[in-house]
């Protein structure tokens, strides 16, 4: 049977039209059929009649639908979406800083990157700074213990589709392609507002930069 008429295709299509981001971690079967040119052409043909098309995340790991042309309706949608993102901007920035400080200080998060709850808890146990950062998040109640604060944070990220539980037994979570989008908006703000960034201390290997 053709994949274009399969349940997976219908599920993926429904998920896209609901505004979700499909990647191999959030929806493995959906991402698999989107790897095929035939499926993408079909979706683009179908959604083109609604002035939509498929787009990819920065790391090319996630697929989602966007409006093709910029008209008053698209501008209105963009403004609404941006306002929605701005309400959560402080949470996202603090959350990313917390995870970067826990996992690796010098690099942003990548889709597919895993995070163990036990490692996160251990990092919190060892560092008062990280505990303070966690307590500052809007998901944390001031009076609750660290474990509850971590679970509240994980719960919110799971609900928003930023992470999925890849191993329930050992509480291992994987970042989905949605993390790209969250980081992209923050970087978009940094670039457009010309917020100065601190250059890397060790830039001796700058000549290694690979021009694509």
């Amino acid at each position: 049977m053709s994949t274009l008429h399969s349940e997976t295709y219908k599920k993926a299509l429904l998920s896209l039209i609901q505004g979700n981001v499909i990647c191999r971690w959030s929806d493995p079967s959906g991402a698999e059929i989107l790897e095929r040119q035939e499926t993408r052409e079909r979706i683009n043909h179908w959604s083109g009649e609604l002035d939509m098309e498929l787009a990819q995340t920065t790391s090319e790991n996630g697929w989602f639908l966007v409006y093709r042309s910029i008209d008053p309706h698209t501008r209105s949608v963009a403004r609404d979406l941006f306002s929605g993102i701005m309400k959560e901007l402080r949470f996202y920035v603090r959350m990313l800083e917390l995870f970067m400080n826990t996992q690796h200080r010098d690099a942003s998060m990548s889709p597919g990157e895993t995070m163990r709850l036990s490692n996160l808890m251990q990092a919190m146990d060892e560092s008062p700074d990280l505990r303070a950062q966690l307590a500052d998040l809007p998901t944390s109640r001031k009076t609750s213990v660290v474990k509850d604060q971590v679970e509240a944070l994980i719960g919110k990220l799971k609900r928003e589709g930023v992470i999925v539980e890849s191993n329930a037994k050992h509480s291992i979570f994987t970042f989905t392609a949605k993390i790209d989008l969250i980081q992209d908006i923050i970087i978009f703000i940094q670039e457009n507002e010309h917020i100065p960034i601190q250059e890397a201390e060790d830039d001796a290997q700058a000549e290694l930069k690979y021009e694509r």
Partner: protein
Amino acid sequence: MSDDQASFQHHPLTLLLEQTYKARDLITRAYERNGSDLSDDEMAKSEPLISAHFLRRDGNSNGIRVNQRLQKVFDGALRKNRIAAINTNLGEELNVAELSMLGLQEAERHGKGDLASQYREDVEGSLLAIYDILDDGSATIFRQVSAGFGLQENRDLKKRENEHYLRQLNSLINSFDEVRTALQDEPFTSDPDIQAFITNFELHCLQVVARISDIQNTIKDYLYRIRTLEKRARQIRAVGNQLRKDPGFYPTNTANLAQDWTYCRRIVPIKAKGYPEIHQFSSAGVYADLVNELSQKLAVESPEKDLKPSKLLSREQETVTKERRDDEMVIQQLLAECIKTSQPVSAREFWPRVLKTGETIRWSTLGFLYAVSQYLAQDPLPPNGRRPTSHHVKSAYRTIGEHHLSGTHDLLDILVYPARMSLDEALSAAGVPKSVFRIDQSQPA
């Protein structure tokens, strides 16, 4: 399953390996020295491995570490912190080849065929050694870069390791370019056999160089990704710092450009509308036609329905048809006589003359009196009446004390009289002497 396999299944080593597998997380933590402050349950799980000298207690706290000899075995297997070093200097072998070539020229000049042949083999051997250095070095680094197993988990160390490999490969390629240039010149061009060998040598070497180029691209790609992630991290931290410095920060420029960013052109869930958009001027005519069409289409007479007569006699209440009991009928006859004659009626005198039906046949006079007493206490609506019984009639109880100190009275009679009469008028009309009987208007206990 063979007998040997069956015996190995219960071999102590098999059991120990199974135990090791079950505690693999614990062993990893012990290997990474992260096994401090274990819970009592985890400590209990590690006991068999401590007994087997796989693990050792670490300090006074609930911590464990891997046996040092086992640690070395694991380090070796994981190639932990072992960075491959390759020989990038092809110049030494080139020098040896040059000396051999000079010897070859000298031997040919003196007509020493055997010696010349020996020198020719030496030159070829040196060139083959150069090929081997190229091939071995590229294969070693290819293994380090492409195999996930054994590589550094720490991203910073991994990056430095890859940078080191890239430098080594660059040196190797530079060195090989020098070799190629040298091979195009004297003394290598003097001997046709060596020239033919060099052509063949270069052909094979170029395949290795292509592989090295692939490895270099893989490493550059990895380093580019890492550098991109590092730059993104710095950009995110910059926004974080800005938000801390200026809590009221709002990115006005970005808001104006929101539609230029792909994600802001992302579709949102489409909400289905159950009503037409009639406020659009262009649509007004279309909808007016539609309404006319629908009104004509839907203007049909509905079929008549036979409605059942309503059961309601009044607006508030439905009539309940209730069969009157025999005792109620007898009591209501008593009350009816009182109302009809507008005179007091003695229940005791009424009872003998009334027509008794059903269960009332077996009643005594006193039984009838108590039934009348209960009926009047309930104060029900009379048949077809809208006001309670007490609105039409009143009653007086004639009782006598059995003993002055007993506190109880025997019921002798109930006098039912019209409500508009006073008690005195009723007693007078009934001819009851007040001085002889005790009169009590309240209900007997």
